[in-house]
Each structure stands twice: as structure tokens, then as C-alpha cells.
């Protein structure tokens, strides 16, 4: 199989798109998925439980030092950055906000790009800021595949616009089409 993992980032409106993508994945999806959606520092785990019930893949909060596994979706908890080590273990970090946010998309994308290289798919979704551009560019530089949500399907297009200015992304698609493409790439 060409790909091993998918990283997904988003902000305002990103959660809705994420839900569409994740519900498209089958229970035996052979990749691991790690996600950062900007959330307020004191939000609870409601979203994770909700997505887990709605999806066939398992959706859980990322825990420090756990190893990523196929068919699982790891979501960054509020107030911590999510990073991936080259041995495929996750790390949570309380380092300062990046792009005014913690968790932020760039730390996840950059570390995943270094760890997983060409076997990584990076997906950037709706959002009203510039987080994720640097990370997506790094994914491309390291040979991974880059996908962004098509601006007209986003609630806020700034995030994907910034990413398209920063690198020449491979695919610009609606959330439904992103789900289909990921399935095909892992099929």
C-alpha cells in the first residue's frame, strides 16, 4: 500500500467537513488518521464521542506516547499540540500557541511529514486563519500527497487559500470527494 497515514487540519467550519470525511471511511480502513481542529481551551470531549458514534472507524482523543494504529482517528485534545514521532508514537506538547492556536495544525503536519514522508496524506479544511500552510508545504516537500477543501464548500476559505499560496496542492475537492479519494488511495 502506498499510504500509511492521513493528517487532517481545520478551524472554523472544519468540524463539519471532518465529519463528512470520517463517516466515509469503512470500519477496516487500513490507515491511521490524526487530526487537529482548533477548539477552545476549555471545550469538552463531546465532539469526539459524537464522531465516534457516527463513524465506523474508532475516533478517540490522542493520548501522550500511544502508538498510532490503522483504522483509528486520533483527535488533539484542547490546550495541547499533537505531534508524531518517527517511531509512530504520538506526543502531546504544551509548548506555546502556534499561529495563535493550541492545538495548531502546523506542528502536527510538520512532524508527520518528517515521520511518515511520502506515505502521508495531508488534508486542510475550512478555517479563517493561516494555520496549516507551512505544514502542508512540508508534507509536499517530503513527498506526501496534499489535499485541500474546495473554497466554495468551506464556511471560511482563508486557510485553504493561504495553503494554495504556499504550495501547489495536489487536489482541491469537496469534503465528500475527499472521503472518496482517501478510500480509493487506501483501497
Amino acid at each position, binding site marked *: 500500500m502506498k499510504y500509511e497515514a492521513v493528517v487532517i487540519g481545520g478551524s472554523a467550519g472544519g468540524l463539519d467537513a471532518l465529519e463528512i470525511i470520517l463517516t466515509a471511511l469503512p470500519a477496516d480502513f487500513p490507515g491511521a488518521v490524526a487530526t487537529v481542529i482548533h477548539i477552545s481551551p476549555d471545550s469538552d470531549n463531546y465532539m469526539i464521542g459524537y464522531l465516534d458514534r457516527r463513524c465506523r472507524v474508532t475516533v478517540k482523543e490522542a493520548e*501522550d506516547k500511544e502508538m498510532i494504529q490503522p483504522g483509528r482517528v486520533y483527535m488533539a485534545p484542547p490546550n*495541547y499540540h499533537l505531534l*508524531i*514521532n518517527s517511531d509512530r508514537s504520538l*506526543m502531546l*506538547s504544551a*509548548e506555546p500557541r502556534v499561529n495563535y492556536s493550541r492545538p495548531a495544525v502546523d*506542528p502536527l503536519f*510538520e512532524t508527520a511529514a518528517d515521520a511518515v514522508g511520502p506515505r502521508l496524506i495531508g488534508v486542510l479544511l475550512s478555517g479563517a486563519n493561516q494555520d496549516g500552510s507551512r505544514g502542508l508545504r512540508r508534507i509536499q516537500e517530503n513527498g506526501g500527497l496534499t489535499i485541500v477543501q474546495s473554497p466554495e464548500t468551506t464556511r471560511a476559505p482563508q486557510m485553504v487559500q493561504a495553503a494554495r499560496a504556499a504550495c501547489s496542492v495536489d487536489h482541491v475537492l469537496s469534503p465528500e470527494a475527499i472521503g472518496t479519494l482517501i478510500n480509493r488511495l487506501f483501497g
Partner: protein
Amino acid sequence: METDIQESRDIEIDLLLEAVFRKYGHDFRDYIRVHVKRRIDHRMRVSGCNHISEMQHRILYDRRFFETFLQDFSINVTELFRDPSFYLAVRREVAPVLKTHPHIKIWHAGCATGEEVYSMAILLREEGLSQKARIYATDYHPAVVQQARAGIYPIDMMKEYTGNYQKSGGRRSFADYYRADYDSVIFDRSLRDGVIFADHNLVTDGVFGDMHMIVCRNVLIYFNRNLQHRVIRLFIDSLLPGGFLCLGKKESLRFTGCDHLFETVSDSEKIFKKRLFDSGDRIRRDQ
């Protein structure tokens, strides 16, 4: 990045960490690799070094540059009453036990700029424990220990901290504990009575004996499993039987190989209690 380049970079990082250890005695070799890489990348970007080896050269020959590097590694993000529910749990689950002792010793390991220490000092005072408490507040980074000792914090954080304090079960007026001075606040000097501030590196320094409670929050996440194990052993040797160990919200004993030596007091707040003397363990350790 090609694996070949990746491999060369890994070698450069090994050599850099080795150089830092041999020259300055700070040992980052067992910190989580991805964290180390990010800190190095960050310093490379701001300092304009093109290669890690170039940075190594500057670190070896320029102590001031090393100090900025040390600052990069010390992620000293902290808050007063950070995670209020933790302090609430300390009030409810730990304070009643501490009250039964004639005197108590508490160690804040990795206290950063001290917010956690003043939070605990306030809590102890409100629980009527401050007269008999001694607090050891340590961090490996001398500059932050100095700030901790000063107890001066930006005034614009006080609204948030007051909220934290109230959520932690505090019922007094938080403003009684500090005095405003332009854009800073200075915490009441008397909160420092019984607090000893000191430099201490968890990787290379030794035991602080006979502790009733060790608070080490958001430090172990930067260590690999091997180093986590070593530091938890250090805590075990520093704690009295029945002593409390408090970790950060996202930390656990799960990967340290030491979880059997503790009971869980609060799973969600990561408060553990060292089991009473376990002779089997002592024998195993002495071998």
C-alpha cells in the same frame, strides 16, 4: 525528506546533544526526539544557522547562544491554578490526609516560573496547613527559578487566574493575595515563607528525601519512556510511603513500568499514592 538526509540529520542531532551534555552538563539525550527536533528547527530559523553542525559550533563557543538554546528547551508555559479541577481534587482528597501529619514536605519539580507554587501556597494557607508545610520548588533552568522566587506576573493574566482560582474551590477574594504595580502584580511575600527555591535537574540530580507530596506536572511529557521510568524511580525514592504523586492532566504512569507501585487517588486529575512499603520491590531493586 529522503531517508538518507533524515539519517544524517539524526546523526547531527545526536552529536549536538552530546556536545551540550559534555560542555554544559544538561542532558537532553532522552527527551522525546520530535520535541528536540522542533526546538532545534525553531532556533535554526531564528538564528539563521544553515546546518545543525553550525549551530553546534556556536553552542560550544558562545555561552550566551547556549542560554537561548536552553530557554528553547524549557517550555515554561504555566498558569496560576492551571487545571482548576486538579486543585479542587487536592483540596478534597489530599489536604485531609496532609492534615493528619505534624509537618509536611512538598516538592514542585519543574515548577517553571512558579505560578504552580504560589497556587499551592495559597491552597495550603486556606486549608490551614501553611504553618507546618515546607515547599521545595525546583527547575533545571536557573532563569525561571529566579522568576519563581520573585513571584511577579503580568497583570493582564489576573482575570483568567481569578477565574481559575474560583473554579479550584477558592472562596476568598483572589486580589488579597497580590498587590498591583503598574502592569504587574506581586504576590504576597508571606506566601513564600517556608518555600525553598533551587536549581535541580531531574535527569542528572538526586533525590529530595521524605516528601509527603511531589507535584511534577507537564514535565514528563517531554521525556522518552526510558527517562520517564528513571524519573519516576527518583520520585519513588523521594516519597514517603503513602506519599502523593501529582502529574499533568495528559500524563500517566502507564508507560513507565512503575504503575504497580502506586494506587490511583484520582484518575482524571492524575493523583497517585505511593503504596506502603513493598519489600518485594525493595529486594528487586537492590539486586
